[in-house]
């Protein structure tokens, strides 16, 4: 449901004008209502992941004689993924900071770094999945694997979508500079990115660490 933030166009001429004391993305009330809308979307997305987590927790022992979490998970792999994503959340934050400091060059640079980190995260994850599949651990093998691939894959596809989206915003900033509109977009895409980082924290905790240890 990545359409929420795309919703432009509104009709509320009565909202009061710019408030320059606020951060750039909040100055125009037409933009700040979108930020609220996006927070609401994040709440729904959180519930979505909550349901996937619940499913995973219910099914994680249902291995049907196939590979178990212990056998499957590769500690260096998910450790690397974790630190890459944490770092990308930080660089995304720096892009927001640069936006607030009206530094277009830095915004572009940090967005680019974040995108690259995101790409390497997705690359590592794809590699991990590919390796699993080669070992016969496919989605179709057992309920545990269905739930594992769906939960982690949903996060991965969120990240992939985020990369495409962030890239489109990078182009827009490059073309139009820092305006109240692009500032709002930078802020929102980073909210999304930080949110995905939080989801990953729970994935590495509940799926990987629990899986390897418990």
């Amino acid at each position: 449901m990545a359409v929420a933030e795309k919703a432009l166009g509104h009709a509320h001429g009565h909202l009061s004008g710019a408030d320059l004391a606020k951060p750039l993305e909040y100055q125009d009330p037409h933009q700040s209502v979108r930020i609220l809308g996006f927070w609401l979307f994040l709440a729904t997305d959180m519930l979505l992941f909550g349901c996937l987590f619940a499913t995973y927790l219910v099914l994680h022992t249902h291995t049907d004689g196939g590979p178990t979490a212990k056998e499957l998970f590769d500690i260096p792999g998910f450790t690397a993924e974790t630190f890459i994503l944490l770092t990308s959340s930080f660089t995304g934050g720096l892009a927001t900071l640069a936006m607030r400091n009206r530094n277009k060059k830095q915004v572009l640079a940090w967005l680019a770094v974040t995108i690259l980190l995101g790409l390497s995260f997705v690359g590592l994850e794809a590699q991990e999945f590919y390796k699993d599949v080669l070992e016969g651990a496919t989605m179709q093998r057992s309920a545990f694997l269905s739930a594992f691939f769906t939960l982690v894959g949903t996060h991965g596809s969120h990240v992939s979508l985020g990369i495409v989206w962030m890239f489109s915003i990078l182009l827009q900033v490059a073309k139009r500079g820092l305006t109240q509109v692009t500032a709002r977009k930078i802020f929102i895409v980073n909210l999304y990115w930080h949110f995905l980082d939080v989801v990953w924290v729970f994935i590495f905790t509940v799926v990987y660490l629990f899986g390897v240890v418990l």
Partner: protein
Amino acid sequence: MPDALRQFADTYLMWQEGPMIWISDVLILLTSIGIVATLTYFKKWKWLWREWLTTVDHKKIGIMYLIAALLMMFRGGADGLLMRTQLAAPGMHFLDAEHYDQIFTTHGTIMILFMAMPFIFAMFNIVVPLQIGARDVAFPYLNAISFWLFFFGALLFNISFVFGGSPDAGWFSYPPLSELQFDPGPGENFYLLALQISGIGSIATGINFLATILKMRAPGMTLMRMPLFTWSVVAACIVIIFAFPALTVALALLMLDRIVGTHFFTILHGGNPMMYINLFWVWGHPEVYIVVLPAFGIFSEVVATFSRKRVFGYSSMVASLILISVISYFVWAHHFFTMGAGADVNTFFAVASMAVGIPTGVKVFNWLFTMYRGRIRLNLPMLWTIAFVPCFALGGATGIMLAAAPADYQYHNSYFLIAHFHQVLIGGVVFGMLAGMYYWWPKMFGFKLDERIGRWAFWFFNIGFYVCFMPQYALGFMGMQRRMYTYPADMGWGTLNFISTVGAYLMGIGFVLIVAQVLYSIKYGERDLTGDPWDGRTLEWSLPSPVPHYNFAVIPTVTDRDYWWKLKEEGRTDELKPKPEDIQPIHMPKNSGRPFIMGVLFFVAGLGFVFNWYVLAVLGLLGVVVTLLARSFEYDDEYYIQPEEVEHVEAALGRL
């Protein structure tokens, strides 16, 4: 070639199913040709595209939702009548088991997802911005996307009837029955994809209206000055936002099972069907409140207006709305008390379910005391509201009875349950939406619906309701379980079933009369020139009927609850008429064809997944991504209505 054609007809058009399908195919073809021909003959294509398909105006989107809801009520009602006909006597051969199974599945799905949901969204759209003094919703473009996702989801669901086959595993589609192993046809895929697509639209609507109400109220309209309908929308949106993701997940996982071959809910390889049931009702129970809360809001508006009195216990009303929306999350397991969860689980969910009855009961008393010492006018909206009270009270009472878990072991899956939820959903939602439709009809179209035909419809529908559903409580006690397409003669169920069928037909007549009433009133209905035909209390009645495109020429500053009523009382209504010097350029969103196109693309992708035509599915999804990106790069999407134009419109309405 004829061979290929025949195979196509057999596989997708279900040609072997017999005359019922043939007739339907032909009728649908003729209707489609008729619509196309009419539009072409009157040269209305451009009008249709410009005024409706590309609109982002909340009022027009609301009207489209309303039309869709009424059409779906017709389809769902026809399904209901077919079922009741089959059950009129033991051992009937009107429908066979397969058809009956499909029909009760589509009846339930359509009534909940494609009738009740668009009906409440119609009311959201038509009323909320006007009530809070806004010019549109927070995200008009997203609003159009929501509508078209709903529309094409509904279309996808409905074409399954003549193309590929209808779903037949019940409206909640429990696995493993709905898994490939037991249900290989495309029907279940239709169900999953259609609900998924329209569900995305529903989440977006929830976000949209919550943001609208939180952020776009007119100056001075504090939260505790909001009309109760708006409050009920807040409560409903909270539930939508937090409940729909569970449906998304349940449907997605079942879809993965059916299309990709995973094992979430299969019998073998570690799947657990009970998890689907759990997830489905995490959404399913709050869904009931999603559709009934707005009805509560409508009743609150109608009761106050037609009793000419302030609503009683406003703060209690608000508190109970919010309480209901929160408690409704913690009751879902009462749909499967008999699934073997521990006694602790059952007790918790039983008590929580009963607890929802408390704020609901409070609302009933507050409505009664709003009428108390008022002056009650029995116009159509009020008639439906008054009819709602006993109906819903009984439905709520049987709901409390069902919540007692051990007793539920006897009611579950029986006709007692059927009678109960029809009573709350028809008595609550349908009565509420009809009351709302009659109430705001003049605001939408500028004329009232005819009272005389409306009363006939009211009595047919109401009496029909009791005749239809009261016997079903008794049938439940007789041990008749739901979803049997036929029943033996020796159980003594025949008489009551026959009575119930008669009632269903009476309700059918009621519906036909409503349609007749609309058609009659378009020509002869009383025109509303004042904009305030019912002597209303809230802001929307300060506007002319129908409302101009931009809603408010000048945004009012609200100082009171029931602000419009207060102004009328103090003779200050002129304050809300625009003065030329106050009129500023009005900032409005441009129309866009992209939401419609996005709906089409989702439809294409859905169809691709239904029949495992993956090229089509991927193309559809790519199209969706491209339209989203195109949207992201769009900056020039708004325009200004200049003051001269506003003055011109207002002058023509006699308001300057």
